[in-house]
């Protein structure tokens, strides 16, 4: 196996929700909430080889974005480490996070929020590379024009403001901004989720072209199983902060192993199967403030047994390149 470009080692992220002043006063009187801890990501390990695209799938609140943000150096992990090319992506400085590399860049879900409304898009694309000396200020204009062309936008648009563009065009601008830093790894957090159906295909095609031309490595976060299947080589399924299954894309979709993965595939509406009788997953997604004991999925799992309540299953290899975190694979649920 080629050397890993990205190494995520036993990473966890906890957020402490501090009570506000009113709640603290209530707390003194014995009525208010205490500081609560959200376990957004728990003990996740993942390696990504150069040129590979790994899909990250899960329902909302399962920690996809938090993991993505840690990989992109926006948060630092509470435990564990994230190494890019064998060096940490970020370090914490007091309460702030200092990013240490420019070679990992992130693309956000909502292109309406991720572009500064008061800065011309050409300047938005140019400021990173100029600040880091990737391009000289004099040459920035030509550099930007080239990048805009590359993402399928008319370079003549570079003096316009973000609100003059449609959602799909803005996402192209955000991609150009990330590419301007000459990244090796892109973290894409639901890059097409806020786009219209007819525009999604344009942006996915663009991503696949760029990936081939620039030999990019990617973390592709999405809740859309069809989209992830189309662009990823490998997929990790997350549930409540943990990776529950990881496998090469074709194998995962052909034979999902984990009960959650199977249930998820079942409950997704699909085009063309006609009116179907739904077999949705029962129950609600538990809160990451109070996750269930043992296997987080046990209150909703049709196969759950007593062991599932007691003991959290570890992510174990079930076939070459495949792993799953379920007691069914390791001696049963009794």
């Amino acid at each position, binding site marked *: 196996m080629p050397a890993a470009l990205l190494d995520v080692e036993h990473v966890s992220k906890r957020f402490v929700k501090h009570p506000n002043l009113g709640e603290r006063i209530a707390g003194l009187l014995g009525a208010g909430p205490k500081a609560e801890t959200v376990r957004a990501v728990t003990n996740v390990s993942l390696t990504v080889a150069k040129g590979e695209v790994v899909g990250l799938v899960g329902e909302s609140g399962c920690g996809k974005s938090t993991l993505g943000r840690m990989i992109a150096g926006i948060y630092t992990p509470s435990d564990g480490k994230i190494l890019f090319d064998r060096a940490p992506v970020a370090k914490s400085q007091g309460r702030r996070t200092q990013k240490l590399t420019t070679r990992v860049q992130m693309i956000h879900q909502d292109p309406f929020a991720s572009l500064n409304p008061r800065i011309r898009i050409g300047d938005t694309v140019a400021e990173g590379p100029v600040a880091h000396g990737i391009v000289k200020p004099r040459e920035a204009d030509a550099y930007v024009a080239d990048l805009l062309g590359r993402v399928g936008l008319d370079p003549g648009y570079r003096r316009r403001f973000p609100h003059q563009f449609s959602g*799909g065009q803005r996402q192209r601008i955000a991609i150009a901004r990330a590419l301007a830093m000459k990244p090796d790894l892109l973290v894409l957090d639901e890059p097409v989720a806020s786009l219209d*159906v007819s525009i999604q295909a*344009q942006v996915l095609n663009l991503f696949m072209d760029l990936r081939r031309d620039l030999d990019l490595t990617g973390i592709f976060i999405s809740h859309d199983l069809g989209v992830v299947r*189309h662009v990823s080589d490998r997929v990790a399924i997350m549930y409540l902060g943990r990776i529950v299954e990881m496998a090469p894309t074709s194998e995962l979709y052909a034979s999902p192993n984990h009960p959650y993965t199977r249930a998820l*595939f*079942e409950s997704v509406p699909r*085009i063309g199967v006609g*009116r179907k009788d739904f077999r949705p*997953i029962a129950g609600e997604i538990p809160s990451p403030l109070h996750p269930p004991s043992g296997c987080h999925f046990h209150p909703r799992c049709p196969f759950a047994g007593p062991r599932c309540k007691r003991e959290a299953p570890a992510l174990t290899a079930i076939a070459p390149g495949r792993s799953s975190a379920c007691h069914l694979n390791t001696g049963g649920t009794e």
Partner: protein
Amino acid sequence: MSDAVLRVKDLQTQFQSRAGALKAVNGVSFEVGRGRILGLVGESGSGKSVTGYSILGLIEPPGRIAGGEVLLNGKDLTRLKGEAIRQVRGAQIAMVFQDPMMTLNPVLKIGTQMIAAVRAHDRVSRKAARARARDALAKVGIPSPEERLDAYPHQLSGGMRQRVAIAIALLHSPAVIIADEPTTALDVSIQGQILAEVRRLADETGTAFVWITHDLAVVSSLADDICVMYAGKVVESGPAAEVIASPRHPYTAGLLASVPAEHEPGTKLPQVPGSTPALANLPPGCAFAPRCAKAGPACTTTPPVQTFEDGRTALCHYPIEPVSCQPHSLTSNTYRSAS
């Protein structure tokens, strides 16, 4: 279909703006029968929500209904004003919004709100109203409904809140429920639960649904009929299975073709070029023409509504010929169903 409970005819809704009157809904017609689900699909800004609001008379200035009829069991709702439309709304026709907090008051208990909603239209005792509220919650699949009546909205999850909103809509057994992207903000597993409940409700209670969404997969698995909207107009309509299997309008065909699940992973996806036009400067003739692969010389003029067998329509000069092979030809390589 003569047994339609809701019939919308040539609905026109406009918003006054600096750029003149924006025709957000520009001649929309459709009908829904008892116990049937109509999927109203389209991209953002195509006029789906405005259509829904117009049906319930919820359009506020600078917007106005500039023409057309909304016939609920034969009665034209666009002619009703003030108290008259309020009597109809909630009782004979109801709406469910994407954000359930549009319906729910955050500071009142679910029970209190539901009892008030019952007694807004029916003179019944509080006790009877409470019983009806509990039954409605049970009907949408909420576990332990009696206890939920004493909960505040913030104590429920997003999916539960949306169920409560649907339960409130169901309180007076309305003929029609308009649902505007009710599952868009929810997770797939929760969306699946709600779609299952809605399908069952339509079949069991005979309530008709207009299900507004941008998600083709949702309509495909939920709806009986489909209306596809583009730039304020219905560009294609017909039975869901047939429209999905063999779209006749180039826009519908483009949308369906671009869905990744239908293609070999990693391959280039067929894409609809360009982006949705702004209402303020629509091209003359067919609004889809700048993005249409089939556009021809006639397309600079307004296309006619073409009617085909099975009550299908397409708003197009050059509709696509039906594919001859059997329906569901698209499902070849979707995910394996687990079992």
